[in-house]
């Protein structure tokens, strides 16, 4: 007899979602995680006394609403804020405001406004098609069975319904880069780079990298997953983690925090459980990992426990990130040129031109500090004062174009980069530096250590077509099962991967139940 039907590695959002669906179906499930709080990347941390930040993910824009409903996360305490506009800050204070399908400011003309509506319309159609694929297990192209055929038929009908023009456009742009697509559609430079930002953040890419159209479309699926734009979670992202843990426990899941898995245990030719750093071993019929594929296979299972071709695939799996987090404690609400105090609750972005973004990629590639960065800023305490002492504020920014390991080392590099980032902010918010009472820069290698994500990549592996859909994370380990008997994946490294979605966890649970491997 095993201790559990399934032990799930990682109490991140996908691990907890998977656990809840399995427990709902009557399975005995244990979730273990080395962190002391549930949620994984949906986490809140007091980084300096009195100031709490969402220290990994800061926006909720792609979470599948059906999961929120199925698991009654609202009843478990999840509250989200209002849908936010995106304001792309301009040096002259004439900011670009993107809200729904409308854009204003930064000198955008009516031609660009019309083009933006057309572009959004096109993206919406493509993203809808992707959502069809995202909500089911990825179909295999060979060795099909009826489940896969049905998905492919739905996809085929969806493609047909796009109409000739859109289908041609999809085929044409999906493999190219966001830089070329932006130049095809728009003339306004601020608009182009504001959109391009969404294609590169969280990746290891620049706007001219192939696959950036795909990563942009991936983000755009949020709208079809029932999410009305970008929102913040009240109480910080950790509240999402806590609500997921509460929902899971309500279904009968045991959530064991502060228990890091040291190894996946293989007995003879199948996985039979996990061992913890405490020395304890837990047996289970299935081990389901929400850790990223590299951590799961290389670090926890071990290359010597799988066939060599698979080890080679894991070794080739790309999981790098050029994205860091900047956390600031502010003694008062800062002033941004051209923004009202109420606008400070919106999503604020700062981007160089697309060429500037591409130029910034080069030093990053060669392990140097870039001169230019993109900022994706949340002053969460404006909408949620509970995050900072009264009258004071927290600012978090997702900063892109930060190397994983600069040649000068992070001891020397970090103060330099922090100063440079603050001076870039100062240009848009004069005086903000004087308000900073505490600051923290979390570089990709620190995100890797704190949240267990190889390379600091918060998609658990680069979002590119060669690592997506029926090839996520790699051939031979798709549809949530792996080439190793008894070991499944349910994290962002599995289809449809990437971002705070919950779909990998939900799809994995459904697939495991469908296969009947736990009955």
């Amino acid at each position: 007899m095993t201790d559990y039907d399934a032990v799930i590695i990682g109490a991140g959002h996908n691990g907890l979602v998977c656990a809840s669906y399995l427990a709902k179906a009557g399975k005995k499930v244990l979730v273990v995680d080395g962190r002391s709080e549930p949620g994984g990347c949906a986490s809140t941390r007091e980084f300096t006394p009195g100031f709490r930040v969402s220290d990994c993910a800061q926006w909720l824009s792609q979470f599948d609403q059906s999961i929120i409903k199925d698991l009654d996360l609202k009843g478990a305490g999840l509250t989200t804020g209002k849908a936010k506009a995106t304001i792309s800050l301009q040096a002259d204070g004439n900011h670009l405001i993107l809200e729904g399908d409308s854009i204003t400011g930064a000198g955008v003309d009516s031609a660009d406004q019309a083009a933006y509506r057309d572009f959004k319309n096109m993206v919406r159609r493509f993203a809808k098609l992707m959502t069809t694929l995202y909500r089911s297990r990825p179909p295999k192209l060979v060795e099909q069975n009826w489940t896969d055929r049905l998905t492919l038929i739905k996809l085929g009908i969806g493609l047909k319904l796009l109409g000739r023009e859109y289908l041609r456009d999809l085929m044409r742009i999906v493999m190219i880069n966001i830089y070329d697509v932006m130049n095809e559609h728009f003339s306004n430079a601020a608009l182009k780079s504001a959109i391009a930002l969404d294609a590169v953040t969280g990746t290891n890419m620049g706007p001219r990298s192939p696959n950036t159209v795909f990563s942009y479309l991936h983000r755009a699926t949020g709208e079809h997953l029932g999410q009305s734009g970008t929102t913040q979670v009240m109480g910080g992202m950790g509240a999402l983690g806590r609500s997921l843990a509460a929902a899971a426990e309500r279904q009968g899941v045991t959530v064991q925090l502060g228990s890091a898995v040291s190894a996946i245990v293989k007995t003879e030719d199948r996985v039979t459980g996990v061992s913890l750093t405490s020395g304890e071993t837990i047996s289970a019929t299935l081990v389901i990992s929400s850790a990223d594929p590299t951590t799961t296979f290389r670090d926890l299972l071990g290359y010597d426990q799988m066939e060599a071709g698979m080890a080679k695939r894991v070794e080739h799996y790309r999981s790098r990130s050029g994205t860091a987090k900047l956390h600031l404690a502010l003694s008062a609400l800062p002033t941004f040129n051209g923004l009202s105090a109420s606008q400070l609750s919106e999503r604020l972005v700062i981007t160089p031109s697309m060429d500037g973004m591409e130029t910034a990629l080069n030093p990053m590639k060669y392990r140097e500090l870039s001169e230019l960065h993109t900022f994706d800023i949340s002053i969460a305490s404006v909408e949620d004062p509970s995050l900072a002492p009264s009258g004071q504020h927290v600012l978090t920014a997702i900063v892109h174009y930060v190397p994983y390991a600069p040649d000068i080392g992070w001891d020397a590099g970090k103060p330099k980069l922090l100063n440079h980032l603050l001076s870039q902010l100062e240009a848009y918010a004069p005086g903000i530096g004087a308000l900073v009472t505490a600051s923290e820069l979390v570089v990709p290698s620190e995100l890797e250590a704190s949240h267990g994500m190889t390379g600091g990549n918060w998609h658990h592996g680069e979002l590119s077509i060669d690592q997506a859909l029926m090839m996520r994370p790699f051939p031979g380990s798709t549809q949530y099962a792996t080439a190793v008997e008894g070991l499944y994946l349910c994290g962002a490294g599995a289809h449809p991967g990437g971002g705070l979605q919950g779909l990998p966890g939900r799809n994995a649970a459904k697939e495991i139940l469908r296969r009947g491997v736990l009955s």
Partner: protein
Amino acid sequence: MSDFNREARLLTTPFHSRVAAMCDLNDWGNWMGYTTPNAYFDVELEYFSVRSTTGVFDLSPMNKYRVTGPDAERYLNRLITRDVTKIGVNRVGYAIWCDDNGQVIDDGTIFRLGEEDYRICSYQRADDWLAWNTLGFDVSIENESDAVAGLAVQGPTSCTVLTLLGCTDLNQLKPFGIAHYTFEGRPLMVSRTGFTGDLGYEVWVPPESAEALWDQLFELGRDYLIKPIGSHALELARIEAGFLQAKVDFMPAEEIVRVGRSRSPFELGLSWLVDFSKPLFNGRAALLKEQANGSRYRFAMLDVEGNKPAEHSFILKGDKQVGTVTSAAWCPTAKANIAYAQIEMPHGAVGDELVAEIYYQRELHWTRLLAPCKVIDAPIFKSPKRWQTPAPPH
């Protein structure tokens, strides 16, 4: 001659000066990038030296990899399909290795030289695959192909000749055993292995010893009718003895471009080399699946009527084409017309009666022959000397 591409120039083995001196026919071939003789003086006579006296074959172009380190045994056990722990120190094992799809990459011999010290002798270059296999293992791989020269010394008088060379008590060496000697101050290793199915040895020396070894062997072996043999004669001997040849009887899985052209161990009649009691080896999961669901092909050894070798023949069952021949020869000692074929399942079981569609030409005149053939269960040539210890005197 500026167009000459030096990279394309064939290499020579450490024995080349001696080989060239004895290659009366001057008939050369390209074996894995090396200049090697197809025949020295007469293919049939060379072949009969292996069966009746001693034949010497230069096998230096074989690839040799040294595998050392604390995880050497575990590493090899994951690499190959058989259980490497059953190969003792100073023993050799024939082995195949597969990719994750259970398709054969190559076959070769594993020499266990010490507790944590092995040599893989393979037909194909394997640097890349062996290197990928090191992930997760504390093991080091060294390509020592150029550091080890080798001769196959095969035939009934081979033990006597090598004993005269200084290989004391060689007759006590069991099949697949290894013995170590010194030759002119340098190490000389003998393994009782070979590709001919008879009593025979393989002799391994540093390249510096190569020419002296050749000279002394032929000097001492003169009275025992030692002869050099080329690749054509060896081909006859190995077909007669039932050995498969990579790139002839199967395509190495890593070289396959077209889907479905590689073969599994089961499809090559090598299931005896697959040990499922090992919990992990490359290809295990796929091979278990194949075992449950059935194979696509079957390896069949055919006894073909008549004396026309069924080279490249189609194999028919009634009117239906069910297979193709990969190797074929009229085998002089067994006096049998043998062919190896890949037969589509479910055909080709032992005893199955098939037809080989043979085409042959005499003075530009082509003849089509439909030769009945029968699937046999083992090579017709069986020499008891191959397995006898002490090695029988001639």
